[in-house]
């Protein structure tokens, strides 16, 4: 039951932090800090601490996926255009939009550093699976 309780604690923490009017990157940093403080404070055993950190990282990855799906997924963009009866994005517009992410001034979650880490993992898994 401990991990289920932890899931609700992490969810509650994330919902509370989401209410603060700051950018998503800062919300994630506060979230990580808060969750790690909770994990270290309420664990006196290395085994459970490792499990809790691993569980939290998976939770964080799911939350990040919800965010990226809403603000970056092509499918969500297409569905939004259809729902609001707007013009559908072209390949050219998509190219321009995605290139902006590699601008060094880009301070959003979807920045160069995120893709740098993702790229390494993607290469390994592509070699293994495709």
């Amino acid at each position, binding site marked *: 039951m401990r*991990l289920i309780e932890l899931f609700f604690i992490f969810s509650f923490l994330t919902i509370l932090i989401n209410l603060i009017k700051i950018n*998503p990157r800062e919300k994630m940093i506060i979230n990580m800090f808060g969750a790690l403080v909770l994990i270290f404070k309420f664990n006196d055993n290395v085994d459970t601490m490792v499990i809790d950190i691993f569980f939290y990282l998976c939770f964080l*990855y799911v939350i990040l996926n*919800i965010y990226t799906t809403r*603000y970056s997924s*092509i499918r969500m963009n297409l*569905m939004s255009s259809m*729902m609001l009866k707007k013009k559908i994005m072209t390949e050219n517009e998509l190219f321009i939009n995605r290139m902006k992410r590699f601008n060094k001034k880009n301070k959003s979650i979807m920045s160069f550093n995120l893709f740098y880490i993702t790229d390494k*993992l993607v290469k390994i898994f592509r070699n293994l699976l495709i």
Partner: protein
Amino acid sequence: MILFLPIIKTLLFCIIFQSVFFKLLKISKKLWPHTTIVLYIFFSYFNYNLGIDITEYVALNLMVLISYILFLTIIFNESPSVFLFQNIKKKDLKKRFKKKNFIKHRHNLLKKKKLITSKNVLTKKGTFLYKNIIILSNLFLKETNS
């Protein structure tokens, strides 16, 4: 480590068997979500031992499986951003990017998964999915100005 090791073993077995299925046995890559779920459930059952609390084992496995499936979508569906990142130094980048037809591919996927109709109207399933993602994002992580 009693709970952590079976999870790592399950994940490793799953990756190894998926590699064998897709690379050696040439099983259709369209089946990646099905093979992932079946293999993961099979190996998590196989690696379970009675010393582990069942609720903790199920909760952790569920979280790992969801994260793993979300990660594999980047591998099998190809992300435009990752494609750009990998080819950023190439000369004809825009041409290569357009050739990938990301929008057309995703549009076809929406139709195939019955999220939209042939007349580009959202189905009930599509509307449900769309609204749920908006709700979840508003709840957990949203842009400040939205």
